């Protein structure tokens, strides 16, 4: 430390300040760009009276983002968003097919064929006091 000359010290301080202000500026810029101006996406959907969905029906909900299936296995909702990279899968007679990279899912949402590695999300559906089905994503 003792041989740190006056000039060397000033140089160090100057360099330090320059780097510090660059880092602060960059950090501020990143925080500025990182703000999400959009409202949080809807996570609760009122599907109406449960009697609207008798056994054997399949109903698309919210532009097809979910499908409500009522069959021998029971009543359940499936989120049709592909778990690979987020395209919307198309429901078919025995499952869901993704238009982007060809993943297949069965009617429970489980993967039949990749590239998707995870099953389709299954949001919970419950009956409220008024007899309406409520979907929680």
């Amino acid at each position, binding site marked *: 430390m003792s041989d740190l000359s006056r000039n060397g010290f000033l140089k160090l301080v100057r360099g330090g300040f320059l780097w510090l202000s660059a880092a602060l500026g960059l950090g501020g810029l990143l925080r500025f760009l990182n703000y999400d101006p959009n409202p949080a996406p809807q996570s609760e959907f009122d599907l109406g009276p449960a009697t609207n969905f008798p056994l054997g029906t399949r109903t698309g909900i919210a532009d097809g983002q979910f499908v409500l299936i009522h069959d021998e296995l029971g009543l359940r909702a499936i989120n049709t968003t592909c778990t690979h*990279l987020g395209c919307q899968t198309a429901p078919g007679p025995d499952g869901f097919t993704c238009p*982007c990279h060809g993943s297949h899912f069965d009617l429970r949402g489980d993967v039949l064929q990749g*590239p998707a590695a995870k099953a389709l999300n299954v949001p919970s559906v419950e009956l409220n006091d008024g007899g309406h089905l409520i979907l929680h994503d």
Partner: protein
Amino acid sequence: MYGGRFARSLVSDFSAMLPTKNKKQMRPSFFHHLHPPTTPAAQARWRYTLGAGGTAFFLMLIIGVTGILEMFYYIPNSQEAALSVQMITYHVPFGGLIRNLHYWAAQLLLIVTAVHLVRVVFTAAYSRLRRFNYLLGLALFILIILLDFTGYILRWDEGVCWPLITGTNLLKTIPLMGNYLYSIAVGGGEACSSALIRFYTWHIFGLVLPVVVLSIWHAFRVRRDGGIAVPPPDLRTDHSRISRDELVRREVLAILMIGILLILLASFIPAPIAPAMMGKPGLRVEARAPWFFLWVQQMLKWGDPFIFGVAIPLGLFAVLAFIPYIFPQPAESDIGRWLPASNRPAQIVVSVLALIILALTGLSLLPA
């Protein structure tokens, strides 16, 4: 009588720019002055340079001008964007032509930049002091790909929603900083409803600004590094030089040819357009990436998005970036010759990469 003198001097100033027989005695115009008085003939041969770098500059100019014209009508909000594109295409006089020129110049730029890169590797032009400029060029190439992608998204019609979602979700798969990158690029929310304003700003400002700066730097470095790559003077076999006039003449010829090609393409093959995106597209809409990303889409069919969609494509550019640093330097007398033996490894690597990309693209076009 001041007016008459003014008009006469104006006429003589302009006529000084026109080609005349005894140009030699006149002072060169601004455009001529951008060129050195004479240039080694070897640096200006079509069959060496393919004119790719210069063509890229010309195309950027066209893209810039037509892009600014489009901005007079384009509305960057998700409700009106696609409609304003339709207005430009079908209602504004010459709007369709302007948009087609912008589109075709952008596609050609991508191709020409790739050709330029391959040319530079195949003629060992990246070696020694030029390897920094090689990196600048590579950065430009990546920026141009991003510009093409953001421009494609700005159509905001139903064809672009899935590529937009998959492309931006790829960012999320990056460990640690994925979500952060996503929100910086897209602004959070659902890509197909909220990304437009960000893509607009990236396209028009955030990416164009670095492209302009890097292009000027790239051209400056070419000049600073002694012009287009040729062997050092003592190893040259060809000592002939061409004049500034001859160089300008060749450039004008190239500009004319590219200009004619562009106008033909723009007049006869319209840029893609589809109905406006209204929420997420219907399920019948085919999900196909833009042509320059078909190879990535093909790889994504094989599995893990991060490996096939991020790591491998980025790794490929990393390999390109390392070429001048890891392979033995080509012999100095080989600089500027096609396919010299002394940089065979680099040629092989680039050919293999190019073939893989072409093969994947072909594969993705096969019916499933």
